[in-house]
Structure formats: C-alpha cells, structure tokens
C-alpha cells in the first residue's frame, strides 16, 4: 500500500508547481490553470488524510466543497478576464495596470 507521506510529497510538488505558475506566467488564463493545480494539491491532501484517519469521511466532503468553490472561481475569474480583454485587448497581467495609482 502507498504510505501517507508519498501522497503528501506529490501534493507538495504539485502545490509548488502551481505557485511557480502563478508567479511567472503572464497570461491571465494560464495563471488560472496554475490556481487549479493548487486546488488539486490541497484536495489530494484532504482525501489522503481522510483515508488514513479512521472514520473521517469529512475530508472527502471538504474536498467536494473545494471542487464547488473552484468551479465558482473559474467562472467568475474568466468573466473578469473577458471584461479585461474587452477593455485593453490583451490579457497580460503585468501590462494591465490601468487601476494603478
């Protein structure tokens, strides 16, 4: 059987890759993809702990709620990205500084 630590290592690697993507990508949609990776790594942790702790199915319920919130986040964030595209005709995050004081 796979020990708990291996799930945690995989999840930590996935999280770090997501952080790297959020910090370095210029395209807003690509940043959203990296955020989805971070959500997934958190979910792996929740489900792994719910498996390795006796009778703790709550972790899976939380993972389900995380998936719901990820869906909301994707919908609203893409709507914002589309309004941004309509205004400035690109979605490069470091160039979209119209609100900077």
């Amino acid at each position: 059987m796979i020990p708990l630590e291996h799930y945690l290592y995989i999840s930590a690697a996935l999280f770090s890759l997501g952080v790297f993507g959020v910090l370095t990508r210029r395209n807003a949609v690509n940043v959203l993809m990296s955020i989805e990776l971070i959500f997934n790594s958190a979910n792996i942790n929740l489900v792994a702990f719910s498996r390795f702790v006796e009778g703790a199915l709550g972790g899976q319920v939380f993972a389900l709620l995380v998936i719901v919130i990820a869906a909301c986040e994707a919908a609203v964030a893409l709507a914002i990205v589309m309004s941004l595209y309509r205004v400035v005709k690109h979605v490069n995050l470091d160039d979209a500084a119209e609100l900077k004081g």
Partner: protein
Amino acid sequence: MESMASAAIFYGVAALVLGSALYVVVGRNLVHSAFALVAAFFGVAVFYVYLGADFLAGAQVLIYVGGILTLLLFGVMLTNRIYNLNLRSGAIQVVPGALSAGLVFALLVWIIQSVDWGAMDAGDPGPTSESIGRLLVGDYLLPFEIASVLLLIALMGAAMLVRRRGSRS
C-alpha cells in the same frame, strides 16, 4: 505481486501528473497547456481511486475535466484573436518565481519529514456515495447550503460581468 503492479501504476501516474503540471506552468502554447491540464486532472482522479474515494473521483472527472477545463479552453479561445494560431504565453520573473516555489517545496518537505504522522491505513472504506450524501444533509448541512448559494451568486455575477454594456434586455 499484485500490490507491486498497483504501486508501479501509482508512481507512473504520479510522474504523469507532475510532468503535465510542469508543462502547464512552463509550456509556451496555451492550448497545449490546457490539454496537459486534462492529463493532470485525470491523474488526480486516479489518486482518488487509490484512496478509495470513488464518488470524488467521478466528481473530479465530471466537474474538472468536463466543466472547468471546457471553461478554461473557452477562456483561451475568446481572449485571443481567432486568426492567432500560436497562442503564446510569456514568462516573467522566472528566477524569483522558481526561488520562491523551491523554498515553499523545501519547507513542505521539511514539515512532512519532521512530523510523525502515526498514520495507519484505515482500509478501503467501500462505496462512499451514501455516507457522503448523509454527511452533506446531516453534519455538513450549513456548508452545503452556503455552497449552493455561492454557486447561484457566482452564476449571476459571471453573467453580469460578461454582459455587454448598454444591451439592456
């Protein structure tokens, strides 16, 4: 023998997930990144199957691959000019980003190694959909209701945000 094959498949899937996640964050082509994300999501669903979370594995495939990824692909297509065949995404501040991500990874690995989890495999819990359903309408009723209201608000907010200005009908 069987457990060795299952472990081999597990680590193969882990390599697939991390490889496609790496492509998502360093790949140059946006559409290729989106399809690499499909592989990563499927791999995470395989992890859920290994952890005995059958309902969650199904939900992962249906919602992430069927819903969120389609939405992201629409986002890629609609925020680029349609004749722009090579949808590129540049990278900025690569060295500080890699440094921070590496630090985060090192910190997480240090924590994982230094804590004695004392975790025992609780065994395959069997089909989980019934117990998850009972928990959702029992112990977790309030989060469940809040999530449904949040979905409604997100739906209305997204529709309002992408509406063209001046078209009131």
